[in-house]
């Protein structure tokens, strides 16, 4: 088969539907990555316009431009949009687009989930955008401290838009993170062991693990606050045993890792771009990976440094102050590794490199002011002033926007297959650099003079007028620079001339394909022997197009790729992807309906939406049915591999494992909240404890164990006789018993709206009940599968997945029942 015929055949298999209709049914990572990036830059534009309005307001004292009710929406939405609708989705979009190409495979692990994540982002972002246009946007500051955002002091719908919209958008972050973890660990080119992985993939892996452990505390906080607002269960009201400090802990447990979740992908870009721009390889690859991992760990140990002024005991302050300065060490290792790389090679000042230099100057300054505010006595003065605002913009703009601009200009030739024609980008860089430093250097100064953040105006006597005016004028220079980048990129699509492949002479695999990339990425999958496969084999692209790699034969008209053993990179099994489908957008729309019903308080719609979610979810999984045993399949190069449905650890198992890690963090945060309220909140112990019930406890614990054991009987039964129905029936009975016990707990809670203790028990019970329903649904699904003949001793992959969820249910049920009953017994 010639290269051209293979290309046509593969394109027919992998392409999305032609025209704009294709957007709604595409599941291809290249398409979805582009959609993500386009949407996130749209939100960058919106957030930028809000920033302009803020600066216009602050340019002069006693400005009549916006009153506090508008101004409070402006700064709240500026922060919210930039964090949740620009920074995180930009990472997701970039990684969705690049990872499979860099890892030498054809798509991410779960193509439909990629699309579902995008549509959740799209609809959730749309909700927030609507609130902004309608003038009912959130106005409590982007970290939403209750009681200000609670039902008493913010009765309007504004706060609900934040809590519900952001939670909706976070589904996409969790989906993407699960998908990246599985893709990076398993979906790589044969031979690509962990130590040969592109450095960007390492950073994406660490970032994804951080999302899985960093986002759940915020999702929990949002759920609790929304439940308090909508149903009156008190978690943050001091009079009813709640504590507003609980929100601050949950928020910053997310909020600090969030900073590194934003910085690490950018560091991945820098580690990728610098060596190429300097014609060398990265200095200290292993050290840089270790530094990224260390940063991830440390970042979870210093959330309290956002709470230095909340009256934390002095020893606690000393500990978190030390942790906050310690986090600068791995950052220092990376910065010096990058400078060392530049010394090792011969740096060339292309446009991406200019932005990297912009990063160095800005980020180092941001890091140094960061070390200053990590010192407690300094922070007591600088906290909540414009100094902190300036510091965080140095870190985020320096540590994220400059690297992302470098990334845009670095990968643009791959994106479009063209080369830039006008030299607008260089001028734009100059404006951005000057404008940025003008804006925020001034802001440091005015902060030290005592200007608080979030004030809508100030007196002329304060003496801040000139500094603020300089800051505002500079910010407009910055905005013009960014607008020129936008113009440059748009012009690039319209007028630029075709460029040659791999213009930077880079060594990673994304350059071993035609540009713009075809829907299938690689006509055949490469065999990787070095860290820079394209450098060691300049003709790799041609050889792959000729079909000299794995999976070169598209004869069966299936979307195929293969997975590898995580550490060594030996091929393990083949994956057959589902094709184009509208299921993701439909699923996201129904998920949106669920959130909308809560937002506008039309509660009769909620169960309908939940039933819709269950139905579409059922169809989603059902459509992967494999009616007959396929046996090992031809994988090219004379090798045969089993298909994923005929293995013990299918992609679904890996995805479930990572999703459960996030789920367990959510549950852990809930238990932390329970313990925190019990020990710290005023108004504890509660007036009335739950009456312990031996029957409830016994039924629940027995049910949990039976559900878990039943799944093991089912796995064994399927392996030996090809039927697991008996075991599944046992497991389902156990699940039902566990559900009964936790439902009884929820009913017996004395007064859910009366005290935080009761409210917390109610939510704990609800959490367990939800997981029982989920496990029950999965077990029922599997029983139907077995009955219809879709499983066999070979087609066994679904049993271990359901077993994993049943085990988690057992763990949750036992813990919930024990922590609910224990205080009553001890009393």
């Amino acid at each position, binding site marked *: 088969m010639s290269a051209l015929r293979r290309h046509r055949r593969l394109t027919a298999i992998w392409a999305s539907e032609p025209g704009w209709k294709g957007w709604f049914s595409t599941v291809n990572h290249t398409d979805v990555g582009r959609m993500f990036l386009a949407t996130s830059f749209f939100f960058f534009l919106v957030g930028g316009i809000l920033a302009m309005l803020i600066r216009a307001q602050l340019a002069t004292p006693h400005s009549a431009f916006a009153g*506090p009710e508008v101004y*409070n929406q402006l700064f709240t939405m500026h922060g919210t949009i930039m964090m949740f609708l620009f920074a995180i989705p930009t990472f997701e979009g970039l990684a969705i687009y690049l990872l499979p190409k860099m890892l030498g495979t054809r798509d991410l692990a779960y193509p439909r989930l990629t699309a579902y994540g995008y549509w959740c982002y799209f609809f959730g972002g749309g909700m927030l955008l609507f609130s902004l246009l309608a003038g009912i946007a959130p106005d*409590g500051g982007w970290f939403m*401290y*209750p*009681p*200000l955002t609670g039902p008493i*002091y913010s009765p309007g719908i504004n706060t609900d838009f934040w809590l519900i919209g952001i939670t909706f958008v976070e589904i996409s972050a969790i989906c993407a993170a699960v998908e990246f973890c599985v893709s990076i660990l398993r979906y790589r080119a044969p031979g690509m062991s962990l130590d040969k992985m592109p450095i960007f993939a390492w950073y994406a892996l660490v970032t994804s693990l951080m999302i899985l452990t960093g986002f759940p505390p915020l999702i929990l906080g949002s759920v609790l606050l929304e439940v308090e607002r909508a149903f009156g269960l008190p978690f943050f009201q*001091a009079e009813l045993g709640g*504590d*507003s*400090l609980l929100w601050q802990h949950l928020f910053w447990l997310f909020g600090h890792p969030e900073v590194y979740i934003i910085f690490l992908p950018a560091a991945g870009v820098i580690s990728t771009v610098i060596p190429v721009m300097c014609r060398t390889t990265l*200095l200290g690859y292993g*050290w840089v990976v270790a530094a990224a991992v260390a940063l991830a760990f440390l970042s979870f140990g210093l959330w309290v440094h956002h709470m230095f*002024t*909340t*009256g934390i005991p*002095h020893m606690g*302050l*000393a500990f978190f*102050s*030390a942790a906050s*300065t*310690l986090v*600068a*060490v791995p950052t*220092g*290792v*990376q*910065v*010096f*590794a990058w*400078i*060392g790389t530049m*010394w*090792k090679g011969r*740096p060339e*000042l292309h446009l991406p490199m200019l932005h990297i*230099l912009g990063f160095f*100057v800005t980020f*180092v*300054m941001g890091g*140094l*002011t960061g*070390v*200053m505010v*990590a*010192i*407690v*006595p*300094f922070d*007591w*003065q600088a*906290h*909540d002033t414009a100094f902190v605002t300036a510091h965080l913009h140095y870190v985020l703009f320096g540590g994220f926007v400059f690297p992302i601009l470098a990334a845009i200009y670095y990968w643009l030739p791959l994106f479009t297959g063209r080369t830039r024609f006008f030299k607008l980008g260089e001028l734009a860089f100059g404006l951005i650099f000057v404008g940025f430093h003008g804006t925020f250097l001034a802001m440091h100064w005015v902060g030290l003079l005592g200007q*608080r953040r*979030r*004030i*809508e105006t100030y007196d002329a006597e304060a003496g801040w007028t000139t500094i603020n005016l300089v800051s505002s004028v500079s910010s407009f220079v910055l905005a013009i620079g960014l607008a020129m980048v936008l113009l440059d990129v748009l012009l690039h699509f319209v007028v630029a001339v075709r460029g040659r492949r791999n213009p930077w002479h880079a060594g990673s695999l994304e350059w071993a394909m035609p540009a713009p990339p075809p829907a299938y990425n690689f006509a055949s999958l490469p065999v990787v022997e070095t860290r820079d496969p394209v450098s060691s084999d300049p003709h790799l692209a041609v050889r792959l197009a000729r079909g000299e790699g794995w999976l070169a034969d598209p004869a069966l008209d299936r979307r195929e790729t293969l997975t590898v053993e995580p550490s060594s990179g030996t091929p393990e099994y083949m994956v057959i992807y589902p094709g184009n489908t509208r299921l993701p957008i439909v699923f996201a729309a129904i998920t949106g309906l669920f959130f909308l019903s809560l937002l506008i308080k039309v509660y009769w719609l909620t169960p309908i939406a939940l039933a819709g979610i269950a139905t579409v979810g059922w169809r989603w999984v059902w459509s992967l049915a494999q009616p007959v045993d396929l046996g090992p399949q031809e994988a090219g190069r004379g090798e045969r591999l089993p298909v994923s449905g005929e293995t013990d650890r299918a992609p679904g198992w890996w995805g479930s494992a990572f999703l459960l890690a996030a789920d367990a963090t959510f549950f852990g945060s809930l238990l932390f909240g329970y313990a925190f309220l019990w020990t710290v909140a*005023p108004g504890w112990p509660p007036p009335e404890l739950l009456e312990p019930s031996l029957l409830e406890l016994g039924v629940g614990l027995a049910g949990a164990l039976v559900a878990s054991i039943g799944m093991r009987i089912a796995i064994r039964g399927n392996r030996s006789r090809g039927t697991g129905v008996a075991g599944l029936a046992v497991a389902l009975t156990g699940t039902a018993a566990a559900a009964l016990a936790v439902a009884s707990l929820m009913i017996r809670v004395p007064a859910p709206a009366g005290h935080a203790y009761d409210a917390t028990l109610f939510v704990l019970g609800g959490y367990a009940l939800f997981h029982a329903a989920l496990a029950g649904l999965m077990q029922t699904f599997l029983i139907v599968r077995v009955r219809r003949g879709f499983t066999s001793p070979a087609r066994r992959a679904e049993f271990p997945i359901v077993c994993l969820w049943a085990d988690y249910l057992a763990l949750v049920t036992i813990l919930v029942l024990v922590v609910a009953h224990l205080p009553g017994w001890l009393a």
Partner: protein
Amino acid sequence: MFAGATLILAFVLVLLALAFRPRSVPPDERGQTRFWIIGLGLGFSMTILAALLAYGLTVGERLLPRDSAETVAVRAVAERWSWSFGYEELPGHVTENVLHIPAGRPVDVAITSVDVVHSFWVPRLAGKLDAIPGHVNVLRIEADAPGTYDGLTAEFNGEGYEEHEFLVIAHDEADWQAFLRGEAP
């Protein structure tokens, strides 16, 4: 701290600039790793940070409230958008938006809130400390000389945030005794 930060920034910028000079580099990867990563990345960063942390902790220690017979106890209660202050030595007396203290004596301010989170901040007397409903935080302040000091709320608390201010008046001994007798000073 500012001078140190400027020096470090200048150091990094010089290193960056020097990377662009034309030269031939010996390909000694191990030596480079030792110099850049172990020497500068780990050694340099850790030394600077350890020194800074030690400084921060000692200064913080000195700022800690010490028990003293001279200490005056007052109470600050925040609500949107005012402050009311009570005095241990003058029970029942409450002043709105003005806090009276004696100059030259340590004052413990017990801070709390009746509605949302606020923050008590008199920039010239001390750092800030939050007023959190259901909790009482104690801040030690001390005015060296009699006079008026501006106080601010430093945690966003809704529409009246910008105007949410108060005054601290530090009295000399005679005026303070007059204040304690309930005479308007």
